[in-house]
């Protein structure tokens, strides 16, 4: 009997900082074990060996920002059995979606001497706007424990359970006193998707929403609390408009305060 064929794993990158795929190399304790279980068919950041698809699992980092990439993601989808979008860029357009509220040609002029050479789309969009996505992992960057959990679940044919509650729950779990109650520090925790382990509050800092909106967040009521703590309209616009500016509930809330 022949050896069981190992499942193939591919990693692709679009507009991003590389941080999310780097999280995979930061799994120092698990990396070799994972590598023994899978065939790494495409992971340019780690290996020059490239195998053609189809791939059993494809991780996609980054957002779609160029006409070429809008085509490329379709090709990748066609050769991927399961496609998982990892990180805020891939799930919400990332920090580069801050262009979505401006005129991209003005942006190009600010940064580049010859903006006519820049081929770019007006908006930075998440992968799910272009192709079917099997699963999304949030965060800027994703949490490496979740990435390892995902790979483990996939290797064992299980589904990964990810809580869609807010960061508040994670503060309670680790016993961090609420920064809004204790110190009057504005915090996005009540509307932000859990997953980071309530990192910022553990450093006495308000959450800045890098995991994006939780399921049905009450952004309006949180904005009212922020206002009572002294936040201005522009403060609220900026708060909802950062690494997940393109996520619908955050985009809408930021626009409410822009108009005021």
């Amino acid at each position, binding site marked *: 009997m022949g050896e069981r064929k190992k499942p193939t794993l591919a990693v692709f990158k*679009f507009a991003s900082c590389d941080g999310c795929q780097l999280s995979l190399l930061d799994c120092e304790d698990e990396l070799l074990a994972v590598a023994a279980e899978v065939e790494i068919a495409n992971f340019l950041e780690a290996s020059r060996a490239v195998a053609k698809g189809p791939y059993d699992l494809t991780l996609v980092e980054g957002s779609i920002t160029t006409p070429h990439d809008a085509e490329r993601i379709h090709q990748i989808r066609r050769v991927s059995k399961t496609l998982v979008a990892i990180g805020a860029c891939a799930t919400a357009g990332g920090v580069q979606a801050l262009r979505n509220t401006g005129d991209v040609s003005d942006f190009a002029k600010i940064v580049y001497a010859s903006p006519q050479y820049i081929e770019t789309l007006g908006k930075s969009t998440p992968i799910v706007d272009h192709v079917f996505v099997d699963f999304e992992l949030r965060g800027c960057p994703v949490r490496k424990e979740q990435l390892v959990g995902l790979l483990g679940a996939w290797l064992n044919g299980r589904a990964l359970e990810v809580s869609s509650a807010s960061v508040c729950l994670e503060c309670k779990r680790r016993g961090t006193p609420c920064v809004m109650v204790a110190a009057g520090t504005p915090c996005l925790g009540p509307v932000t998707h859990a997953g980071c382990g309530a990192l910022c509050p553990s450093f006495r800092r308000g959450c800045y929403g890098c995991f994006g909106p939780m399921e049905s967040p009450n952004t309006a009521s949180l904005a009212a609390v922020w206002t009572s703590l002294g936040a201005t309209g522009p403060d609220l616009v900026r708060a909802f408009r950062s690494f997940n500016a393109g996520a619908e509930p955050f985009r809408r809330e930021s626009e409410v305060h822009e108009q005021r």
Partner: protein
Amino acid sequence: MSSVREPGRKTRSLRVEALARVEGEGGLSIKIRDGKVTEALLRIFEPPRFFEAFLRGRQYTEAPDLTARICGICPVAYQMSAVHAMEAACGQGVPPEIRSLRRLLYCGEWIESHVLHVAMLHAPDFLGYESALHMARDHPEVVTKSLALKKAGNAIVTRVGGREIHPVNVRVGGFYRAPSKAELAPLVPALQEGRGHAQELLDLVAGFTFPDFEADTEFVALRHPTDYPLNEGRIVSSRGLDIPVSDYESHFAEEHVRHSNALHSRLKGRGHYFVGPLARYSLNFDRLPGSIQDAARKAGLGPVCRNPFRSIVVRMVETLWAIDEALRILASYEPPEPSSVPVPPRAATGSACTEAPRGILYHRYRIAADGTIEDARIVPPTSQNLATIEDDLKAFVAKRLDLPSEALGWQCEQAVRNYDPCISCATHFLTVTVDRD
């Protein structure tokens, strides 16, 4: 990789379609005409992300977290350049305890980034493997020890900053919360053990065979009155440049190079230059403690190193230094109290340069009286090196024209990896051309 011979002419074009094991995505093309290298192009596929543009209108306090997202492999460098530039604009320094904690954090990133490059991305070239994971089958010890060492570096960033990538604890003026002594204590044994691994890794890479290749470029790095440079110093060069960081823009310029449609940095009136471990080491050898100088000599290095292939050795020497520096800081660590100083905004311009693992990273901001960012300029190390990388590649290929294309292609790929180009960083202001025939 593909190689095309055009009929009738002795022409060879070589393309390495996607460069592996560099951070970000790039390609390389080299053109050979009648036995001469006419073009060496490092193509950048990375789409632009417009950081300088959307920083306008943000608060000065947001720059460290926003600019960190330029590069997931050296976010601390971006945070450090950003906070120092803002503090310069506001005319506020930080106390020595905060300075030390920042150095500690930066050492963590140096260790993590250097070891990632040396062991995971670069050593496989010298040992003939496609990747570190392939290498692990024959050299499991090397890979597991390197991973442990990388983890020790990452642990510093995590304990001080909250997480390895895009740490959350850095702010203009200091830190949101100073880690307690107990929180940092576990770093010490991990680093002590890591030091042994680092020495072994240094011995290993020192024994590699290096192609005979030296480039005569101008080296540029920071220089501090007493320390090996991280966050402060003047900008100096191997040809006598010696300026304060605030004068950066009167000496350095970006030029638009037609053949590559990329912006290349150069020293005004002098030409291409080079930043990163080779430059930093060669300009600051006398700032290394005696024990590290000895380790460098034992590894076959002189006080100046001009062979980019040996940069793998220099990176390991710097790793050893960063471990010792981190241990030194930890030995006398007291949590800074308060963990940050107030830095009220004022209408001003401020700049800063720090030594990212890949070389000097320049930030300059103009802010309004209420702290709104009006203008931002960021010059990452890789964009400063692109022109030199292309120059070096031309010279490198010229001596290896007889090699079959396949072999030449792989050697060129390795040559590019010497520079550890971080293409994600470079691209936020490099012009991208989509070549469609």
